[in-house]
């Protein structure tokens, strides 16, 4: 299952025609203690590079952008109960939402794991 990354620190797993989206380990470390995650509505159309979710830490609110264009098909209900899952397991149990892949070519603009690692090391 290929995983892609954005330069805004979202990750996206692609399996057949469904993608799962979350934020990276680096992102959660920058945000600090997460107290609330505002997820998109199931059925919402979201557009690559546009607002998709909001993460509230103790310190601040931060936007999470849609890594690709598509329709939201599922959100992670566990985050309502325990937003700190994003801190403890950002790239697994702390996933944000699943979505359709409207334009597979958009994935080509994203980074693979090695490219993202190099990107973060340069920050």
């Amino acid at each position, binding site marked *: 299952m290929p995983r892609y990354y954005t330069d805004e620190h979202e990750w996206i797993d692609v399996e057949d025609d469904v993608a799962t989206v979350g934020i990276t380990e680096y992102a959660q470390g920058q945000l600090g203690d997460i*107290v609330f995650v505002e997820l998109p509505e199931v059925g919402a159309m979201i557009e690559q590079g546009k607002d998709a979710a909001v993460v509230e830490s*103790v310190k601040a609110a931060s936007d999470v952008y849609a890594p690709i264009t598509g329709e939201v098909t599922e959100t992670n209900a566990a985050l309502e109960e325990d937003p700190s899952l994003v801190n403890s397991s950002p790239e697994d149990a702390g996933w944000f939402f699943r979505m359709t892949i409207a334009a597979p070519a958009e994935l080509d603009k994203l980074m693979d794991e090695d490219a993202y690692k190099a990107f973060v090391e340069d920050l």
Partner: protein
Amino acid sequence: MSDHDTEDHLEEIALEPLPLDAWHRARGARMVPFAGYEMPIQYEGIVAEHNWTRENAGLFDVSHMGQLVLSGPDLDAAVEAVLPIDLATLKLGQQRYSLLLDENGGVLDDLMVSRWPEALYLVVNGATKWDDMGTLREALPDDITMNYLDERALLALQGPKAADALARHATGEYPLSALTFMKFGQFKLAGHDVTIARAGYTGEDGFEISLPAEAAAEVADLLCAEPEVKPIGLGARDSLRLEAGLPLYGHDISPETSPIEAGLTFGINKRRRTEGGYPGAERINREIAEGTARKWVGLKLEGRLPAREGAEVFAGSEKIGTVTSGGFSPTLGAPIAMAYVSSDHAAIGTQIEVEVRGKRLAATVSPTPFVPHRYHRGS
């Protein structure tokens, strides 16, 4: 992912390092621009640091703040013409909260004033210190000398175990325990001459230590070697002061707010309320007598979504105010905020709503501090 937080985004200017810059970095601090300096926002994490301070003791570097000493002939009268303070009741060894006001009674800064022998010692906010010095210099007579102590650092040790940790090292003419809240004295720490005030910005018992900049790292090491003490960043400083219901200059109070609206009437000392004779006295005295159209109040929000600075406050469809500080309270495990609201909706228990990204959140006007102060006032 990108921040749209409400921190001051300063222009790209050369940021000055504070005396403890390398010390913070060596301890893993994340440094951010604040008040013209690189400052530590956090070490291990805001919530952990916040809780540590409430339970143990936290060491805060507040060397960005301005330390000023005023001296000269007829000092008290000269300063009373600028600040609404009653210096006749400020004895040697006492510290008091005061306000620098403009001619309209708007707040230019809030500050601490202490009586030194033959002098007054002021601690002003870091972001406003240069403007404050200009305002004070212009307002004070030429024969009043103003010294900016730019070679002094300022450390705050805050929390219920701060007194135990500091007492192991502070020596002086009398023991540290002789200091009660808002008193200060001369002490020695690691052989250096320091002044220690029993005060702070967390709601906890604690101390503010003014010391030579070159001694700051040695003293910070000494204190952090105590089992009760860890370094704490600006992030937890903000969440602690919010729980304590204390205003942050530039956010909760500003030239657009009066101290009476902000509930800081105690900063206008009693004699000055009748005598006046300070900038803004006309408005201040009128507001004390007649009340204000809006008041600064605490809000407890339902749910977990915090409301930040700038969020609008509603009663039904009517906009009644604006949040000036807000966040998630680690101690209460719930979002809290401070807001100016119209006075007819300011009573404790009033149900209102706060709008965050188009959503209306239910909130209740609540007493402050949100977390009780635990100052050491003596027996």
